[in-house]
């Protein structure tokens, strides 16, 4: 039998082995199947993917776009995916990683800058300093003070609650690295937020966060 190309050949070989047949009669999925399956997938998992990207990049619109890019990639790869959700999650992380380099200097935002930067008139932070937008801005800026790998692990493992093993596989690190990096990342995140909360409380006359 002549070889088929790459993955196709592998699939054929697997199928022939499984069937023990000379030829494998298989399904050729039509576009309608893919579209319907993908639409259901996007509706079910899109929201969490968007939130993941939002947390990773710190900007909602950009997060939505990153998630869309990931879902488009997922659609393109749909026929050969055995676990579309894992693929989409990794695509979100990869997409964000792709863009991180361009924004690497934004990480120069110092930990103490998370409140200062929340100036009136600056987008989301332009709402009431004590309102939900300010809180979101504060949290996202605090996240952005974490080094990239720490941020990814904190978001994926802690905030999105993915299993440790999946995060490790997704990022190409060991489970132990996920655990230790998460611990350090959370310590730092707490420290940044506690300091920011304290300063915010001082600047507003001792009021609470909300």
């Amino acid at each position, binding site marked *: 039998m*002549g*070889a*088929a*190309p*790459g993955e*196709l050949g592998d699939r*054929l070989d697997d*199928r022939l082995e499984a069937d023990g047949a000379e*030829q494998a009669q298989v399904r050729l*999925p*039509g*576009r*309608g199947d893919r*579209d319907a399956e993908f*639409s259901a997938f*996007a*509706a079910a998992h899109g*929201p969490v993917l968007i*939130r993941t990207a939002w*947390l990773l990049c710190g*900007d909602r*619109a*950009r997060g939505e*776009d990153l998630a*869309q*890019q990931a879902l*488009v990639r997922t*659609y*393109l790869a749909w*026929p050969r995916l055995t676990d579309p959700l894992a693929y989409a999650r*990794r695509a979100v992380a990869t997409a964000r*990683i*792709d863009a*991180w380099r361009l*924004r690497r*200097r*934004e990480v*120069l935002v*110092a930990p*103490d*800058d998370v409140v*200062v*930067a*929340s*100036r*009136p*008139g600056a987008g989301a932070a332009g709402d009431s*300093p004590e309102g*939900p937008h300010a*809180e979101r801005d504060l*949290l996202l800026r605090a996240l952005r003070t974490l080094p990239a790998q720490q941020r990814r692990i904190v978001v994926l493992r*802690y*905030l999105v609650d993915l299993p440790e093993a999946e995060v490790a596989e997704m990022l*190409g690190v060991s489970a132990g690295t996920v655990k230790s990096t998460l611990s350090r990342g*959370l310590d730092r995140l*707490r420290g940044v*937020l506690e300091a920011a909360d304290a*300063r*915010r409380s001082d*600047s507003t006359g001792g009021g609470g966060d909300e």
Partner: protein
Amino acid sequence: MSDLDLRARFDAAVPVRPVDDAAVGSLLHRARRRRRTRQVGGGVAAVAVVAALAVGGMAMLDRGPTPPAAPPPEETVVGADLWLSAEQVPPGAEVVGVLVDETGTGQVFDQLASVERWEDGAWVDRAEPLLWCLPTDPCSAEVMSPGTMVDFQPVEITPEPGVPGPAMRMSTAGLEPGWYRIGHTSRTGHVAAGILEIDIDAPPPAPLAPLDEPLLAVDRPVLTTAARGPLVLTQVVPDGDVPRPDPAEQARVDAWLDGAWATVEDEVALTGDIGDGAQAVMAAGLDPGAYRVVLSWPEGEAWGRFWVVVAPPVSNEVRRQDAEILQTFAGLPDDERYDLVEAPADTASYLFVDGDRLLVSLAGTGDCAGVPVATELAGRELTVVVREPAQGCAPDGTFTTYVLALPAGVPSEPWLTTRAEESHDALNPPLRLWLEDVVAETRLEVVPSAQDDAASFAALVVRPRTSVTVLVELTDEAEIAATVVPGGTVDLEGVVLETGNSASGGAAARFACGALALTFLGVDDSPEASEDVRYVAQEVARAAQPCPASAEAITVP
């Protein structure tokens, strides 16, 4: 703060929001379009597989070990062509095929090709089709045995008219010496075919990138010697791997000379990430031949192949447009007479003149901007390639090429500036450019910030130990009183610098500079931050002289 509190804060502030049906529909539409853009198409081709393979029960033709003596006649190209990277290869060599639509009307081809062998003065269909491997699939296709049924959905390939399609990869493994005709028939009946001779004495062609390592897919794999435009490079990795996360730092071009790779351009201009992890390089002025472009990261390299030819199949690499667009679209001032040689008719980006510089700027909102990926200045003719945004804002791989013939008097030094490595940089290019020009006179550095809007520009100005956020605003729209609580003033040369604290308590300073208001925000209210803010403000104030007298002096002409 407990884990529960921390997680709850994030859950409340950054909630999961449902996606409605319209959004899913829009996403599906985008995905379908992207699929077509990538020459990955729909279900008709699946039927083609079955049809092509339905003859599988036919007897296999004799595979005589002796190749036919008389070669086949040359193919006449009518409307479509299959360009092959080699005409003659030894058995087992790999070959790249590129479909070219020369009808100008748009042709749709199948991924599946027929393979005929030259036998006794005629082409004989051996019923052994070839399912090309596409650039995003790291594999090398081989002809299939008759009767093979495949669990695979072949795709449509729709090369842009006059522009090379994707670089498809095949191996000649299993093919005996002889001549083979690889053909694709388009939906409209045009046949794109290429002839390949397999000869045991043929020299090996330049190798293709190994499939078990990360490699580069090269958009526009065949160039003419007069080619303009970028090579867009995308990492392709073996299954289970992930692309390198950061953009490559260097690029070079090697030529295949005397059986080995030799570097012909060791520092090729390289863009950053232009979307989806792709980067672009400008390749121009190369002699005909076989090349590879190599991207370098600190931890290694990856490469992809391209070819330069003297003649078609690449006949029309730059879309030609109506020169009238010059006045209506490009935004050039009326008193200038630029000869717009070629320009896009429909695009989100535009050009404008800023002093002695011609800028490629980006319209739309922050996440919906085109990205200039390459420029080339040859004589007084300028080529700018912009990757356009798609609906939904992400770059969709559509490139628009502008070509301007420059008028006399415009400096030909490196006056061209393409901005907006990130889309938000372009929202107010005049303010950003003004600040960059000012800061260039100091020992500070401007880096992007995400706070741009129509009337202000924010940047971080970096000192070795810290950073200061700078807001540059037009005074008629600025609300600087709410930003800085003054604590004192410092008289500089013609500038009164107000120092104090921001509304959030951090160190801050501000001063008016003609039509602009500049505000400086430190990282906190420590003495060090106050010193940093004052230092940065003083440096900028000094370098900003003379301040622009009006908004018109710093806005788009």
